[in-house]
């Protein structure tokens, strides 16, 4: 018998998976199944059943352990399978089972994928998954409009702020995304919001949890929670849906008087309250890609569309697969840090779906979706035909 928490995880998986009726409906919506060779273990009930038998056969070590690891870590955790299973089958918590499997393999020292180990080490050492130095976290401020940076309150030590803009690692370090935090800062200043940015902001810890390193996530969550309490923060506005999802769903003891909002929620609120009015309307045809961690994981489908309708009116067009049916960009669940063979790249399929409705701009609201789609535009040779924009950029451009 192994340690208690490992046995508990095993029991939880066996119980949850044995309720699955193997009706295979989840394969109809799984982006992994659609974009890879189409093996059965590249689809939801195949992955969860592989974990089930991995436990039943006690095959979590050695070669079998590595095969199971490769199966479990290919999933983008987008949640499309859960949407389908809830609607037409047994409502099995498939993503939760897969992530429990990852935690199990990490505790058995089989997970994560070799390439993802340096991500966890960097999270621990530098407070971001990219191996960038922690002290360069706010370097992006140097490359945006100086008038905007002047108004930013850099929160440090015992400085307080009611509203915190949580920038996130990708927006802080990814050079060709600098326009996203830049736009948000411009909008905040335009509205005269009193807000701050943490000088030594550290990753929210989401990648650690998605990769199954629950212990590291707990430590990171604890540290961040102390920082938020110390700065007496009442509202956290995040740029990435992953940070928002992590704070609101995974942080164990974040004080409940702190409101957690993705920036689209905050701006939509401000727009309907009249504090934020787009001046120039967007002429180009724009469509919207629902980030999985905004839509499927947190049911935020309409707010971003409200903003886009305010800005673009009826030149905002809907793709065939939207809201709960939106196709995943392939970046979630740790997939940004490891290369999974794609026969048809998800990001390219999504770009094609946008072109099919005549869109000239694909708007989204997640840095990972942004980079994946930007990549998809390049590799599918559609540069010049279509652009990817973050909703924040569109709002800023409309002021």
């Amino acid at each position: 018998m192994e340690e208690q928490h490992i046995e508990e995880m095993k029991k939880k998986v066996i119980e949850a998976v044995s309720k699955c009726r193997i009706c295979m409906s989840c394969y109809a919506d799984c982006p992994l199944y659609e974009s890879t060779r189409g093996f059965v273990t590249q689809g939801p009930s195949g992955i969860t059943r592989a974990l089930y038998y991995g436990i039943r056969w006690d095959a979590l070590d050695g070669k079998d352990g590595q095969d199971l690891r490769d199966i479990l870590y290919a999933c983008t955790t987008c949640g499309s399978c859960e949407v389908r299973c809830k609607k037409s089958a047994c409502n099995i918590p498939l993503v939760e089972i897969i992530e429990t499997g990852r935690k199990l393999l990490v505790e058995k020292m089989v997970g994560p994928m070799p390439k993802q180990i340096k991500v966890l080490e960097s999270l621990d050492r530098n407070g971001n998954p990219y191996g960038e130095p922690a002290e360069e976290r706010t370097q992006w401020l140097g490359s945006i409009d100086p008038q905007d940076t002047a108004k930013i309150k850099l929160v440090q030590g015992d400085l307080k702020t009611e509203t915190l803009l949580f920038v996130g690692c990708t927006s802080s370090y990814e050079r060709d995304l600098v326009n996203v935090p830049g736009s948000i800062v411009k909008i905040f200043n335009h509205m005269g919001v009193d807000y701050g940015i943490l000088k030594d902001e550290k990753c929210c810890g989401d990648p650690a949890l998605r990769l199954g390193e629950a212990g590291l996530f707990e430590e990171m969550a604890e540290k961040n929670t102390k920082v938020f309490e110390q700065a007496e923060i009442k509202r956290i506005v995040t740029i990435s849906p992953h940070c928002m999802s992590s704070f609101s769903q995974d942080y164990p003891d974040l004080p409940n008087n702190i409101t957690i909002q993705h920036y689209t929620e905050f701006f939509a609120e401000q727009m309907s309250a009249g504090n934020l009015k787009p001046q120039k309307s967007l002429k180009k045809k724009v469509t919207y890609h629902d980030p999985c961690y905004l839509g499927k994981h947190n049911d935020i489908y309409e707010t971003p569309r409200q903003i886009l309708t305010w800005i673009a009116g009826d030149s905002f067009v809907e793709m065939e697969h939207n809201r709960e049916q939106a196709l995943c960009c392939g970046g979630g669940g740790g997939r940004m840090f490891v290369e999974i063979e794609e026969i048809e790249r998800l990001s390219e399929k999504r770009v094609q779906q946008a072109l099919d409705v005549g869109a000239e701009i694909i708007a989204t609201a997640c840095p990972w979706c942004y980079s994946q789609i930007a990549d998809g535009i390049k590799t599918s040779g559609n540069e010049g035909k279509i652009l990817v924009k973050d909703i924040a950029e569109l709002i800023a451009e409309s002021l």
Partner: protein
Amino acid sequence: MEVIVAIRQTPLLDGEIVLTADEKSVEIEGLKYHINEWDLYALEEALRLKTEIGARITAVSVGGKATEEAMYYCIAAGVDEAVLIEEESSYQLDSSSIATLLEKFTSMRVFDLFLTGVQSEDTGCGEVGAILATKLCVPQAAVVMKIKSLNPEESIVVQRELEDGFSDVQRLSLPALLTIQTGINQPRYVSTMHLRKARNKGSIMRISPLDLSTGTGLPAPKKTMKRAFLPEVGSVKLEFIDGVTAADKAKNIVDRLYGMEVL
């Protein structure tokens, strides 16, 4: 089967290297430490033997208080016993002193296989394994990239990585010592929970160098660093390509190479 693996903590290489005031050595205060990369592969190879043939693993290191962290890492990773030969000024010890301490320690126990990393990231001497094997009068093989076969209590067959793509295969009778090359395996990830459990419940066997009956305190070093200096960068023939932006520099270097008909 008893396997001993020697571990050393080396400073993390990224960032600025600063010399001490007397320019006698490198300033190690404030540097972050981690387990020497080669030793991580040696540790993983030992743990592989544990899972595959149930070998009993002892991790041993010569170091000060900071090295406890490495010992807890080994315990978390799954070694059966973690031994720390406590010496606060271990950074001043040279390879032969460390080898002598390890020899005194190892001769007090029974072992079948002793694993070390080929060399350490900071000093890069690659001596400890060879000196130790010679003093213990056991066969040794350096730069091992594969354990081909193992007949416990009898012999081990290894493949060694040589220059220019050559390699050779040697059989060594046990007990034997191997120095392990990077890339032999894929070191595991040790989770925070395991580390936390190791720190709370794990126990490190501490030995003072004096108990190792080396007579008068620490063994005399065979070599000591008298002076450290930062090499002036660039060979005499180096010319930095100028240019404001990266694109300018790119264009200039291409022009130079075409100018010299190298392209």
